[in-house]
């Protein structure tokens, strides 16, 4: 076997140096090593020193992931600005190095991270805006499903209707939000300057789903929010009416709300599956 560290040890050292936050020279210094220490494992020459060569990988590591985060969180970039987003990404990667072979998932933990980051100190709604953006990324390529259409419900008797199992399409998520972050999202989308959103009412959330190939979202609250929680937990139309009736204290009001929600969800193409 050749002299030098074994393959696993070599990769450990290499990986630590190229994934540090401030470049290879700083990473070496942080370990009390002079740049010459790299000469033991990496050959430098007149074209470029060992540090410069390893820095190519360090820069590619950071900027490749930064590009993906920018693509996944364009509204967050617009709110923070390029410099602050760059700093956020630097901190994020130190706390959450990628744990999935696909870059598709590299930004999954950013909503929770930004909510607790200094960048959110004066904008307590940033985490929720990021959660909305991630939900849109996440439903984009979730599994396809047949959509439940109005035709399938025609002719159902009352008992069959009560037993109708309601199943959301897989490409669907509900993002709880104390702030109306759909407003700054819409502002950036329209090319306007985003303003701080106001506090939203109790039960405010944002429903994100894919209809066909296109991702949609809309704010929900009140009765529909309650109904969506039940839908996502798994329910039948009859159980939905009963649960809403308990919450509202009125079977008639519950039936009216359930029917209104069902109509909206059918129009949204939010329901999947077969009748059971």
């Amino acid at each position: 076997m050749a002299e030098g560290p074994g393959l696993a040890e070599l990769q450990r050292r290499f990986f630590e140096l190229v994934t540090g936050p401030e470049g290879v020279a700083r990473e070496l210094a942080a370990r009390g090593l002079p740049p010459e220490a790299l000469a033991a494992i990496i050959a430098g020459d007149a074209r470029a020193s060992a540090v410069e060569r390893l820095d190519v990988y360090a820069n590619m590591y950071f900027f490749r992931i930064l590009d993906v985060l920018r693509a996944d969180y364009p509204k967050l970039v617009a709110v923070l600005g390029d410099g602050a987003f760059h700093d956020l990404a630097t901190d994020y990667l130190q706390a959450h190095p990628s744990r999935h072979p696909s870059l598709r998932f590299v930004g999954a933990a950013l909503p929770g991270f930004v909510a607790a980051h200094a960048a959110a100190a004066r904008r307590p709604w940033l985490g929720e805006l990021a959660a909305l953006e991630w939900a849109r990324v996440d439903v984009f390529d979730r599994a396809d499903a047949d959509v439940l259409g109005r035709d399938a419900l025609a002719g159902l008797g009352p008992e069959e209707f009560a037993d109708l199992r309601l199943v959301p399409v897989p490409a669907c998520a509900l993002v709880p939000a104390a702030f109306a972050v759909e407003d700054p999202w819409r502002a950036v989308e329209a090319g306007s300057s985003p303003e701080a959103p106001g506090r939203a009412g109790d039960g405010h959330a944002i429903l994100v789903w894919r209809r066909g190939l296109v991702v949609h979202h809309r704010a929900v609250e009140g009765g529909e929010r309650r109904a969506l929680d039940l839908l996502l937990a798994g329910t039948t139309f009859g159980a939905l009416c009963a649960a809403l009736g308990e919450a509202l204290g009125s079977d008639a009001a519950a039936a009216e709300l359930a029917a209104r929600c069902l109509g909206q969800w059918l129009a949204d193409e939010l329901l999947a599956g077969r009748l059971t």
Partner: protein
Amino acid sequence: MIDVPALGHGIGLRAEHYAAVLSNPPPVDWFEVISDNFMVPGGNPRRVLRAVRERWPVVLHGVSLSLGGTDPLDARYLDELAALAREVEPAIVSDHLCWGGHGGAYAHDLLPLPFTEEALAHVAERVLRVQDRLKRRILVENVSSYVAFTQSTMAEQEFLAALAERADCGLLLDVNNVFVSAHNHGFDARAFIDAIPIGRVGQFHLAGHSTLGALLLDTHDHPVRDEVWALYRQAVARFGAAPTLVEWDDKLPPLARVVEESLRAKAVAAEALAQGRPREAPAREGARG
């Protein structure tokens, strides 16, 4: 020897070109897709892949097998790749001679290996396990590199030749990567190609590169450079008409410009073949690499 499908010349399927590809099918022979981008449950990527596959042969090119990594092979990734291959029935499945992470974390890069006996034994064993799982031979691609390890005991081309023999795999010869690494490390690109065994090369890659100081970077953001075309002529003369892909990923031009580059590759390959018959006959049509 490996069987080389007579596919012709292809281009990469990129999201920016989806609409153009489907609305006005370009005159290319096949598409290469980055496997990782389509290992998702549904939505538009899978729809586009199905539509493309109905019309063209497709080859699967991965970036995350980490054949040289010392973390365990990712069983879930392999399962998903196997499932995608069952669905797509690709003419070729390939990945890179590299590693991609450590300690469960991923760099999302094609990191270089030392060319040692230890690394060779390690990679060969993993290639064999991947081929066993996928129930097919894969092609392993040489990568561009910016560092060379002092402990290497053999040249990259020796390593590749030995790997192909030990693992009984094919090689995807990225001609641009040969040129970039030759510049960065000061070796002879033509000698590199002459040392790759005939009968193991199942596909070529061509791409553009850029400069960073005294180094060249494999950025896939330019047309193919003249020096790389010259190496491609040499490669076709040596290995025959293996399927050839023009990679263009960054600063992506309109689809027609990428197709134009692919048609140029086809013309260059035809010239090279006309000037001198390759030492081995081109492979059988319909074979699987």
